């Protein structure tokens, strides 16, 4: 079990952090929500009910979608775009989809390669893009759910202020939806760009997200 945990410590650690912070978001969220309810003369709701609310779900999905957009765009952009000297980039000469030898596909696949990397046809096409497919799928689903839950929040707000409610399709063109969307996206793109350029000159000893401390600034990619 200890060996199992050590082998999975990165994914276990981040899932635990995620769950803990979701609990924090939940407990602080219900207090903030009920304070708002009280200010509008509306009844407070229980913590359990809040967990199953559009307010909580919308805030959760809003942040999730932008994270998965960040990784999706980074995974895709880094195929063709490079940053010379960055730990997060491949060599500028390797820009593009790269050949079978470099990607260890087809007859270049080693014996222990995943089977779908060895065979030809649609299964190889799916497998060689599987990371992007799954990340992008999660992005689009979370963005869709964000639009639904934010729309509910928006209409609740409209009702509380005795204003007219709108349909989901109308909400998709509403400034509230796009303001919430863009405010999440911009921070993700800044974070990725920062990682791309900062890792040229800055280091973290022992981290695979950095080059080796003694690597020259113009060395692209990390071997750590």
């Amino acid at each position, binding site marked *: 079990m200890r060996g*199992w945990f050590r*082998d*999975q410590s990165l*994914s*276990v650690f981040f*899932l635990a952090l995620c769950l803990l912070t979701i609990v924090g978001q939940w407990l602080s969220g219900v207090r903030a929500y009920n304070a708002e309810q009280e200010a509008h003369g509306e009844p407070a709701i229980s913590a359990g009910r809040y967990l*199953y*609310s*559009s307010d909580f*779900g*919308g805030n*959760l*999905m809003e942040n*999730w979608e932008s994270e998965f957009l960040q990784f999706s765009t980074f995974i895709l952009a880094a195929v063709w775009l490079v940053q010379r000297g960055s730990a997060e980039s491949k060599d500028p000469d390797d820009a593009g989809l790269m050949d079978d030898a470099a990607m260890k596909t087809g007859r270049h696949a080693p014996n*222990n390669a*995943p*089977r*779908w990397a060895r065979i030809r046809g649609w299964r190889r096409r799916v497998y060689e893009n599987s990371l992007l497919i799954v990340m992008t799928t*999660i992005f689009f*689903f*979370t963005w*869709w*759910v964000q*639009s*639904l*839950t934010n*729309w*509910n929040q928006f*209409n609740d707000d409209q009702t509380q202020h005795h204003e007219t409610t709108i349909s*989901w399709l109308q909400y998709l063109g509403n400034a509230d939806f796009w303001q919430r969307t863009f405010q999440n996206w911009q921070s993700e793109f800044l974070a990725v760009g920062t990682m791309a350029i900062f890792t040229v000159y800055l280091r973290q000893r022992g981290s695979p997200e950095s080059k080796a401390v003694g690597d020259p600034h113009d060395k692209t990619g990390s071997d750590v």
Partner: protein
Amino acid sequence: LLDWWRGNARRMRTMFAVYLVFIFGAIGVYAIVGLEHL
């Protein structure tokens, strides 16, 4: 079938599945919450 589900990669499959179930489970729950008003 999906050979990464067997062999040497077996050790990692639990966390892979946990993440997928967690993410799509939450998406499913809040899709239902959102769709209730549609």
